[in-house]
């Protein structure tokens, strides 16, 4: 393990070398210190649900095969997994709720600084929710829509409104299986109840409930987050910016926004242009304020405001190491508590902002939506205060930064492929039908120090595009691809197969499309629906030549995403296995039986190239079932493979 490179990225490597010389401990060191990690936990067979335990099942069949209560490995594995799904669903969905609140605020208190930026989408959503909107002000409509969306979390009866976007055959499957989601909160609560001691001991039943809860995320909480963010902060369209640690500027006050929600960071972006703030920055000798993103907050402000992403999940500590980050502002999810001690070694102000996310010893400036702009300014002032305290000896900004084209959405595909007057998915469907594009792969998810940072994402994507698969990416996966130049249109000619390159050339788009943050995986679901509507590629999502992957996943949210993607009918690969390998029964359910039940199923494959080949084989199978033409061209010549 020690020999495996920690990252494929040049800038990150530079920082890691410097980190080593300073003797700072980062996630990689902590991981090493943690070895050997608990095998029972990894296999999912450790149960801590009740105080009769902890129990663990011997995976080799020598020791006990049942817990104190009599739960088998299958029950324990399924219950543990279900709890992770519930946790992931609550994270995304709570994010959605926050955005719905902000929308309500924009409607009721325009002085809060929030405004409705995409009124057309607002009215389209109002239509979908059965809210009368003609002749009414945007604020009045927004208020009702926000309340309707908030209602989705706790409504007494009925199915989720946005889940109705799924194609009819898909909804029929969900209803038949009893996994069509209702109120989002209720799905989380019921799933947690089912995992309680002495409730559900049927692995299949648990995982089906897990699917329903996950669907409440993908077609509920996440989708609400995505759509309402578009209404509030504007629907993204393609833009160009730069990425990697090199976007930090020595002569600017550098503020990193990290976490997941754009509610605060969008306001920070707004406030960073405030003349008063800029004057203060100049007073301390800075040229201006450089905002940069990390993780999904970074993706949100990237795709709407063009704010350059400094990096992905494993870059959060590396950014601080540059000695040039004056403030690191986090909201919720994926920030490491390790940042607290690290920031103390530098002048960096580490600031938490969510009442849900605090850490002792960290300055907490609680974000209140009503006073959003004011608080944003306060935070920026803290960064400005820190700027003169930089230690010049510690400043080490790697010069690496590359171009990135970001900001594609399911809706924008219409314009992308037809302009204002011929909006259509037809060219995409045509390209798939004609065999220029083999299929579409969603490569998403986190980073994990268990794997070389970026290796899984980038090698998988290269193998896919070499085989004429169009890739859509979100989250840290998209950021990893961006750093290696895959989010540029030129990448199509360097790495892409001939068919894909022809399409990218005609459209002027990269072969890997940045479609947003991790809640924006919902955009991929919608894109699938739009492809089906355009016609010629079957009637259900499970008919499409598409596949999903999370090659470097680590968060519980990834598990939830995986489950709603699979339940939507899509074959999905995880790099490291989910913690289910302790039960052959559960593994068989997920990797084989799911296909018959919901059309989608799992595979676990850590080698990104092999994983890509599995995805390609799946697409070929679907192409054959659709009786599509053979691929127009042979795959591009193999690139020299970076291998472990």
């Amino acid at each position, binding site marked *: 393990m020690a020999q495996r490179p920690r990252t494929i990225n040049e800038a990150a490597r530079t920082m890691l070398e410097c980190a080593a010389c300073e003797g700072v401990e980062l996630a990689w060191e902590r991981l090493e210190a943690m070895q050997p990690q608990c095998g029972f936990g990894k296999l999912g067979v450790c149960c801590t649900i009740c105080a009769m335990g902890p129990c663990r099942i011997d995976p080799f069949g020598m020791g006990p095969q049942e817990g104190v209560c009599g739960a088998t490995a299958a029950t324990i594995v399924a219950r543990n997994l279900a709890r992770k799904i519930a946790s992931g669903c609550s994270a995304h969905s709570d994010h959605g709720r926050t955005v719905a609140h902000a929308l309500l605020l924009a409607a009721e208190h325009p002085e809060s600084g929030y405004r409705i930026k995409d009124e057309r989408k607002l009215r389209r959503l109002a239509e979908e929710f059965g809210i009368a909107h003609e002749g009414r002000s945007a604020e009045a409509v927004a208020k009702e829509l926000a309340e309707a969306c908030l209602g989705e979390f706790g409504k007494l009866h009925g199915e989720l409104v946005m889940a109705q976007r799924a194609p009819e055959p898909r909804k029929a499957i969900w209803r038949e299986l009893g996994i069509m989601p209702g109120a989002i909160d209720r799905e989380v609560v019921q799933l947690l109840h089912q995992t309680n001691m002495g409730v559900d001991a049927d692995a299949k039943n648990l995982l089906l409930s897990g699917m329903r809860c996950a669907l409440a995320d993908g077609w509920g909480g996440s989708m609400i987050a995505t759509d309402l963010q578009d209404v509030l902060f504007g629907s993204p369209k393609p833009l160009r910016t730069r990425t990697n640690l090199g976007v930090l500027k020595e002569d600017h006050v550098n503020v990193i926004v990290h976490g997941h929600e754009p509610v605060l960071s969008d306001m920070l972006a707004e406030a960073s242009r405030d003349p008063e703030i800029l004057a203060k920055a100049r007073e301390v000798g800075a040229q201006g304020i450089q905002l940069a993103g990390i993780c999904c907050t970074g993706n949100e402000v990237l795709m709407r405001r063009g704010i350059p992403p400094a990096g992905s999940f494993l870059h959060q500590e590396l950014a601080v190491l540059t000695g040039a980050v004056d403030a690191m502002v986090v909201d919720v999810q994926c920030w490491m508590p390790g940042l607290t001690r690290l920031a103390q070694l530098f002048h960096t102000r580490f600031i938490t902002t969510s009442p849900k996310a605090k850490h002792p010893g960290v300055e907490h400036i609680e974000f209140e939506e009503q006073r959003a702009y004011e608080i944003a300014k306060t935070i920026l002032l803290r960064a400005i205060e820190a700027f003169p305290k930089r230690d010049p000896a510690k400043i080490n900004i790697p010069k690496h930064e590359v*171009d990135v*084209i970001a900001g594609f959405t399911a809706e924008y595909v219409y314009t992308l492929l*037809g*302009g204002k*007057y*011929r909006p259509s998915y037809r060219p995409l469907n*045509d390209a798939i039908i004609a065999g220029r594009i083999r299929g579409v792969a969603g490569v998403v998810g986190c980073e994990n120090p268990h794997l070389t940072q970026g290796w899984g994402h980038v090698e998988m994507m290269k193998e896919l595009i070499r085989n004429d698969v169009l890739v859509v990416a979100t989250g840290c996966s998209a950021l990893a691809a961006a750093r290696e130049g895959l989010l540029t249109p030129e990448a199509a000619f360097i790495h892409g197969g001939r068919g894909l390159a022809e*399409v990218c050339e005609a*459209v002027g*788009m990269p072969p890997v499309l940045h479609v947003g943050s991790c809640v924006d995986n919902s955009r991929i679901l919608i894109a699938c629906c739009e492809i089906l509507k355009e016609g010629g590629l079957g009637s259900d999502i499970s008919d499409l030549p598409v596949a999903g992957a999370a090659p470097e996943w680590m968060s519980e949210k990834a598990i939830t995403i995986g489950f709603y993607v699979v339940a939507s009918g899509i074959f999905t690969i995880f790099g490291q296995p989910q913690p289910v390998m302790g039960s052959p029964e559960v593994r068989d359910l997920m990797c084989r039986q799911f296909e018959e039940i919901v059309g989608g199923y799992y595979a676990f494959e850590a080698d990104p190239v092999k994983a890509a080949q599995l995805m390609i084989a799946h697409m070929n199978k679907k192409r054959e079932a659709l009786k599509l033409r053979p691929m127009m061209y042979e795959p591009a010549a193999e690139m020299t493979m970076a291998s472990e």
Partner: protein
Amino acid sequence: MSRIVAAAAIRGSHEVVRLVEQEYEAALSKYGPEGRIGFPGTAFYLPMAYALLGVEVETLGQMEPVLEEARSLLSEEPTERAWLPYLSSALDAGIATLLGQEMLMALRYLDGREPIPGWHGFISDTILRSLGIQLVDGRLPGFAAVIGAAPDNETAVYVIRELQKRNILTFLIGNHKGRTMRDQLLEEGVIPEDPVAGWDIYIVPLGPETHHVIYSLNWAIRGALTFGGVRKGDWEKALKYCKDRIFAFGLGLGDIDDLKYASGAGAINMGFPVICDTPVPEIRPTGVCTYEELVHELDYQKLIPTCVEVRGVKVTVREIDIPVPVAAAFEGETVRKADMHCEFGGKYSTCFEYLRMRDMDEVEDGKVEVNGEDFHEIEEGGARPLSILVEVAGRKMHQDFEPILERQIHTILNHALGVFHMGQRDMPWIRISKDAVKAGLRLRHLGQLLIAEYHHRFGAIVDKVQVRLSTDESEFPPLLTEARKAYNARDERIAGMTDESVDIFYSCTLCQSYAPNHVCIISPERLGLCGAYNWLDGRASYELNPAGPNQPVPKGRVIDPVKGQWEGVNEFVYQASNKTIERFNAYSLMEDPMTSCGCFECIVAIVPEANGVLVVNREYLGMTPLGMAFTTLAGTVGGGAQTPGFLGVGRLYITSRKFISAEGGLPRIVWMPKELKDAVMDRLRKRAEEIGMPDLPDKIADETIAETSEDLLEHLTKVDHPALSMEPLL
């Protein structure tokens, strides 16, 4: 690569918009915002702006929002590296170019700079409607907008003949380094000086600048409005209609500059691909167009086949082994006196053509008999008598089909290059050109052509054909007597047919390729509104192609004999109109009238103040007493929608016993253009006598009597027109 194309198109769109802005400012300061603007002969204002934006531009001031939209579609050129997606910007640049070029041309019409002498300029609505049937029945499978010029005259002629051979209507546009394709074809004697005469040979020069391409495109977009029932401003449907139903393409000859790229981007928005004879970067992935968007073909031999393939134009080219080329595109060709070798009939000699059905054993298939002097034996400029006897036999042949097949002699002979044919029966006039005779054309070739075409077009009913052509008048008398007897018998037979005498009507959905919800019901007393199909044609067509556009429609139970409503017809119409029309009355103008595709010969429109109707033919360009010209009225009738008070009809229907008989029929007619009145006068008088109103034709006003409703009413009162005292129409 595509980026270069996108960059060029975007630059071109900026150039166009800049030019319009300059001209617009100049026009504004000269004429003011109230200055009237528009094109001649259209009810669609600036048609592209009308279709895409829904604006009715009549004054300079009203052009502002169109200009504003064009401006908003302009974008920056893609960068050298890490470019943003450019397909959408390039397509938007194309729309900006379409809107801009249209405004530019309208501004030039304003002060008489258009059309340029020798060039056609704007294409009127009337031309669209009269070509409608040819567009749908495959005689005119598509159109080509040729931009630029061929490298030399020889290539120009080759390319144009390749297009003509496939019956593709060709517009000549723009120039290459100052040289135009019109120059090239004029020099080679392929096209006449008069651009309007070009319609007859499928070659119409529109204008010498790239901007003139808009005339072909804002003509095409009117197809959606006229035939497709697309409403103004429904840009998505209008453009999709063009993509799905209008088989047009651009052919770029010579260098492609920014302006040509921008115009091409406009065409691509309409689903019309562009094919070039220079190595331009290609855009092959499909989807904006049905097939590739932009391709090049450097080999002229393959150029037109490539165009046809890329646009998916459905053409059938058959090589018939005679010394001159044969195609519908040559149908409109006239042989002028100076180019003529010899002629037959007209006022110079006896000439007749006669087709009769024989028993199977009386016809020797493929036999051509010739008697008398042949073309080359006649002195230049000479006239001779001619008889053409066509004898056919077939198991499914029927005597009723004789006149239908006989009428085809005109079309078939006209398709041969260098053969001009007019008239029918015992009144034809045929000319043969010097070039044709020089190429070796002889009498027997006309026979071969007739035989080949009868087999090809009517193979389902014709098993055997033989032809005898004679220039020896001494053999005419017995045959001519028989022929004349047959002509009369046929007239009497069709005259005796009534709607009541048959149980089956025929449908016609030929126009559904253009007007998806329209269906014609053809009865013996009401022919198709295009004037081209009567009941017998419908029946013959069904025999020829049982799965074709003409289907038998059993009348079924009579629901209303006066209005002309039948259960069977209603059921058929409901299905065939894609469940949009639940019922219709064949004889009523006011209640559930028949729908129209758009290619009607005439419009019957209610004149409420006169308690009557007017009938206006599409050739009439003037104003009607309704204050609307034909083109404006036509806008309310087409597209497969029922519009009480308005009806599209064929000319012959005016004198039918069933002409809006539910509302009282013929006595309702208060106004017709003089030209139309004269054309139908004989039959009008006969019909007026039948109904006991012999002076009715003289009471019907025309434009020489009244052009306003006030004048019309005054006239009607003066002559005591019967309509005034009939039951109220409303």
